[in-house]
């Protein structure tokens, strides 16, 4: 097997183990609610319902789904079997809609918002950070404190401020939602324009905060590299500055890619809360609704999906990293 192939297999094993633990936590933690969760949940959600037949039907649905009359091990097996067949249970809040259906409708919105926002923010942030480290002087004195301040603003804080300034006061952008609510989703130009207009503010608030954090990291890495011996040596050799900058950028970039892998979980979490501020129809907003309605199946569906997505993103970044970092290949060669 090739060196890179071995690296993939090893990584895959670790991510699989992590996935198993994530799934186990997702199963175990909500079942630690004291007492009989089903009767507790059903009594909470049926408050105000008078039709005793419906209440009974609801109760029985969840009794079967949770299977709490069985031992914990058997419950876990049922849970796994349902997972594999794509069955995440029935939502309490939107009874009798299955959780998978709700999540499937939300996923495109969340991915469409977060993936471009995080990538764009990451790229711009790295370029700005490198420039700040390289140019120094006024440029660094301005970019660095601004980046530091933007980075310490939580995602949702910036989202709230932008919502107030650009949507409420200036009326430039719509207040909430993913598209105009009178519209029916079609493949028309108007619908697309409406989606884009709703997309702008949440997108920008994620991008700005991401730029801040990434610029700080890249600035630090670049300064570290600029102080290293090979830069001095290259300068003494008379190599052009632009070429040295390229060396420095490439070397400083590698830890930034690992940094992206490590911080992607936090970023996704922050962006999910961003969605809530704009009532964007993604996973974050559904989770907000689910928590308010104590909709446990939907909550655990959301957390499972988020964990899965973050693991997948990490795995992808690791694969790319193994491909571009010569040190990893070298380490694998030595092992052989």
């Amino acid at each position: 097997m090739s060196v890179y192939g071995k690296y993939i297999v090893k990584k895959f094993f670790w991510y699989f183990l992590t996935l198993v633990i994530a799934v186990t936590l997702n199963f175990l933690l909500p079942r630690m609610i004291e007492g009989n969760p089903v009767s507790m949940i059903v009594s909470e959600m049926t408050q105000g319902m008078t039709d005793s037949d419906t209440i009974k039907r609801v109760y029985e649905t969840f009794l079967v789904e949770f299977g709490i009359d069985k031992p914990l091990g058997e419950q876990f097996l049922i849970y796994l079997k349902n997972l594999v067949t794509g069955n995440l249970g029935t939502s309490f809040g939107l009874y009798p809609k299955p959780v998978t259906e709700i999540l499937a409708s939300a996923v495109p919105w969340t991915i469409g918002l977060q993936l471009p926002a995080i990538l764009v923010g990451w790229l711009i942030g790295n370029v700005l950070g490198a420039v700040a480290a390289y140019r120094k002087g006024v440029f660094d004195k301005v970019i660095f404190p601004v980046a530091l301040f933007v980075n310490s603003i939580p995602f949702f804080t910036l989202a709230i401020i932008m919502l107030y300034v650009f949507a409420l006061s200036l009326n430039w952008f719509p207040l909430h939602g993913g598209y105009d609510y009178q519209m029916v989703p079609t493949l028309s130009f108007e619908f697309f324009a409406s989606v884009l207009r709703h997309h702008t503010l949440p997108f920008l608030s994620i991008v700005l905060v991401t730029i801040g954090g990434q610029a700080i990291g890249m600035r630090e890495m670049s300064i570290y590299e600029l102080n290293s011996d090979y830069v001095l040596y290259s300068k003494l050799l008379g190599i052009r500055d632009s070429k040295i900058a390229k060396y420095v950028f490439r070397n400083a970039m590698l830890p930034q890619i690992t940094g992206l892998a490590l911080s992607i979980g936090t970023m996704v979490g922050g962006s999910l809360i961003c969605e809530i501020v704009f009532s964007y129809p993604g996973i974050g907003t559904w989770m907000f609704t689910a928590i308010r309605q104590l909709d446990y199946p939907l909550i655990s569906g959301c957390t499972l999906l988020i964990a899965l997505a973050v693991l997948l993103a990490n795995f992808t970044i690791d694969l790319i990293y193994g491909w571009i970092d010569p040190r990893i290949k070298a380490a694998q060669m030595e092992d052989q």
Partner: protein
Amino acid sequence: MNSSFRILIKSPKFMFGACMLLAMIGLILIYPLFNRNDPLEMIALAYQPPDSKLLLGSDNFGRDLFLELIYGIRTSLQVGLIAGVFATVIGLVIGLASGYIGGMIDNLLTAITNIFIVIPSFVILILISVSIDSRSSFVTAVIIGITSWPWTARAVRAQTSSLRNRDHVNIAKISGYSTPRIILSEILPYIASYVVMAFVLQTASGILSEASISMLGLGPYNTISLGIIMNWALVFEAPVAGAWWAFIPAAISIAIITFSLYMMNTGMDEIFNPKIRS
């Protein structure tokens, strides 16, 4: 220790952050002495704009938002500090054990650390918070602390395992020092500056985590925190009502606190880690 403190005072970044934080702490300690009202008492109509009597107006229940903000900052700082202590201590213990002992224990602890770095901590935070019925601000802080230690553990492990084979540690071993004594006197002093910095960062991220989880509606009960103020503002549609004073001051307070902590951290970083000075 004394001399490093003297250097710290000379760092403008550190002093700027520290002064901002101290001013904030001074405000939340002194203001309640003058205004002895209960922050949860309803004293005005809903969403009254700021005026000379109500510095930041009132919220949807007609409560004094400035007073709420003061108490909110207090809770958020407390939660952040407690979470920071828990996260740093757990990370330190795991990192030291895995870095110093090495072998199988190192492999096991490193694997656990790596797994919990990848699983997003706020997912675990949500799952635990949903499952716990009565959450005080202390419980919330502890939950945040026990979900955010892996970063510290990883860094402490890396430094410890490189220190372990240094000469002075070997000499201590040959001299028959006990393991706890070696760790205390030969390893800890070398990573102390890092641990302090990690604690500052963990506190900042603890405050952010509390705000995020409270925004979701999973915050502590029977208290006011900055995240809870923003949750109320969102749930009761303050933005639509145009009541900026219900959420912007809380949002900016969080940014100021975390900014001052980050500034302190950057200042320390430049002093203890001369390589990154530009």
